[in-house]
């Protein structure tokens, strides 16, 4: 498991990324840009938390695959359902 220093660095990074989302929407970015940028920031945050705070990178790869499957299921449901009413 990582040491306190790494954890602290990640924490600072997470705070910065969270602020980034806010900036996207509060300062005049185009709506699409803001959404796109926010998605990138959110995914980065999630990967950082899952990878380092939940130690996914140290666990057997199969755990990550399982979680990826769950996330995929959600995307499948939402995208297909969203498309079905276009």
């Amino acid at each position, binding site marked *: *498991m990582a*040491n*306190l220093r790494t*954890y*602290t660095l990640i*924490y600072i990074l*997470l*705070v910065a990324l*969270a602020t980034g*989302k*806010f900036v*996207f*929407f*509060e300062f005049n970015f185009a709506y699409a840009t*803001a*959404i796109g940028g*926010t998605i990138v920031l*959110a995914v980065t*945050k*999630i990967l950082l*938390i*899952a990878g380092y*705070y*939940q*130690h996914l990178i140290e*666990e*057997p*790869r*199969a*755990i990550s695959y*399982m*979680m990826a*499957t*769950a*996330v995929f*299921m*959600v995307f*499948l*449901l*939402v995208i*297909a*359902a*969203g*498309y*079905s*009413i*276009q």
Partner: protein
Amino acid sequence: MSDLPPMTSVKRWLVTTNHKDVGILYITTALFFLLLGGAMALLFRVQLWEPGGLGILEPVQFNQAVSTHGLLMVFWFLSPIASGFANYLVPLQIGAKDLAFPRLNALSYWFYLFSGILFVLSFFQGQTYAGGWTLYAPLNVPMYTPAMDATAGNNAAILALTLFVMSITIGSVNFLTTIHRSRAEGLGLWNMPMFTWSWLLTVWMMLFAFAALLAALLLLSIDRLFLTEYFMTDQGSSLLWAHLFWFFGHPEVYIVFFPALGIMFETFQTFTGRRLVGRKWVIIAMVLVAVQSFLVWMHHMFLTTINLEIKTLYMATTIGISLPFDLMVFSLIYTMVKGRVRFTTPFLFSLGALVLFILGGITGVFLGAVVLDYEFRGTYWVVAHFHYVMVSGVTALVAGLYYWWPKITGKMYSEALGKLNFAVYFIGFNMLYFPMFLAWETPRRVFHYGESAQIYHQIATVGAFVLGLSFLIMFFTFAKSWISGPKAPDNPWEYSRTAEWAIPSPPPLENWDGRPSYASGRLEFVDDSPAATDGGVAHGQGNTAEASVEHEAEHADHASIWPFGIGVGMFVFFLGLSGLTPFVANFAEGTAEPPEGLVGFETQPDIMYPVLIALGMAIMGITLFQFGREKFDAPVMNIAERWPFGGIGNTKFGIWVFLASDVIVFGAAIGAYIFMRLHMGWMDWEFDPITMAGLVNTYILLTSSFTVIIALVMAERKNKSGLLGAMGATVLLALAFMGVKAFEYTQKMGDGHYWWYSIEYSIYYVTTGLHALHVILGVLVALFMIYRIISIDAYLEDHRPVEFFGLYWHFVDIVWVLLFPLFYLM
């Protein structure tokens, strides 16, 4: 707690955590619900005797009978009886001593039983649910259907189903951990017995599918109890329900069928004396079906307004999923052709199941064609189709009952009676369901139909009674065997090959004398006791660790009363919730912005219900606390096959599996938001967030994730005060988070924006509220852990629980990472 009372004592059955006991409980309870569901069916079949009904049921009673029949059979009978077989047999087939988490296993059973009792009670609280087992919106809310008035009974039925789904989730986590991590040495996945294979795939499907249903049911319950509007809007609601329900619903049909399929494979092998032809390919086909089952759900929505492109796509995937099934069917047929068949009762039932399944499958392919479905949807063709497939599954499950009866009870049954049972069953089945194809123009769930169909309906009704009779014969056969049947040998079937037949009937409490192992290519029992090692023990350190583990294993616990207690608490709590609506409605009427045009919420408040809610919470508080404190040693397996989940402990793996299902629950809730917003037009969404509150809470929650990590570091360093400080800080941060939430909600309500104000606000309150509920649960666990640190210096020697708590807490944080932009920025 460790000593298990004898089987004849009632106490035994309340405290047992042993997988075989729990299996027996599941099977008997499921059979009880079969009788209840069957009684409902007989009732409405009598009503259907002539067009317009015989009049033995009021119209709304007819609807209740039809709806509860479907719900009882699909949920409270089919899956649980399979679960019972799995409980009893999967550990035996893989060479384990018990499930990975025996107390959780008991807990799933009690949740199941109490959900069933709650469902039965719903009949007596005004009226029970009458909108069909698919719970379609807006029939599932009172707004447009006064008959669906939010009576306590209507709510209780929905809540019962919710509790049932919780039971399934706990069970899936348990079985996934068990099958992936407790297989005997040398038992690779490919070599697992077919029933275990089918159950492994079943629980994987359950994990994801039931999570979607859980989300749907949570939203529906909140609509009914708190007057939110998910399923009450005039736009989008019914599609939202259909997507959520069928995303669960199609996998569900394989969930109920797979265990039956597994039994067919086992019995075909045993009674043809031959290994399944193309066994590897059959397994691959099953895996394919399990995956594909999540890709076809919209074939249940061909008559909705979804676009033609997606309908066509789903027609293609539906045809695709029937292909692997063809392979399985051919494999069964070839196995039979190549082997030498012994026509025992279990084999007859399995063969019957195969025949019925072929017919049901073919008629399903008709329905999968968009154009044909335009004609067939909502008719008896569908009813006939799914009874041929589902009750084919039941047929195979009856085969399972006969097949394993000698193992479970230690008694043989009468083959003559068994064969009579099969004959009556098969005739009754076809008399009941085949005429439905001929009467296909009858609309389903309605007792009016054309005169010309009357003869078919009458044959069907007679068939229903014949089928019912066959079950009486079955019960008689088993009762007779139980009382006076000859003693069963270890293995009454000449060619059975799975491990449960290698031990006595019934098996002893701990299943095996030695450690089962397949390392040599066949089943052997290895003696691992220290005495058998080469003297290491006598000379000191070398083997002591192993020896002490062995020692613990010998004293594995099999009894705990707390799962039962938690079940009681949940039951009382849910029963109380069922009568909450009138209180909320009164409150809403009294606010500055009462809901407009609220229909169907006229039931009078009854003070008993809030009292029950409080009582239930108190019981749960006490029992969960005791559950957490209890020292319980589950039987451990030191040597086991664990691919692909080696290198991670059982509990940690279990938590990850649970989180995977929670991803779906939250994903579906967030998906509901995205779907409704897309449906409305993304930019037409009228919601005015307090962005600053969201931002502040983001910082707070991120910081609490950091303190949880510090807690882990402190535990690793055995620093008690550091650990206490970090856990305490986490709790304080969580409370701060809740404080900001409270501020936010009060602001919104001050503006008159209650959760019933609009769909936008419904979704905002419910999604963030669901998240807040996770925070609250986390706080309770954290407080418990702080108590343990103070009272017994917990987690300094073994810091894993701190890490487990962190997994959950970070997950809650991750959800917020998504909620923040979705609800406060976009």
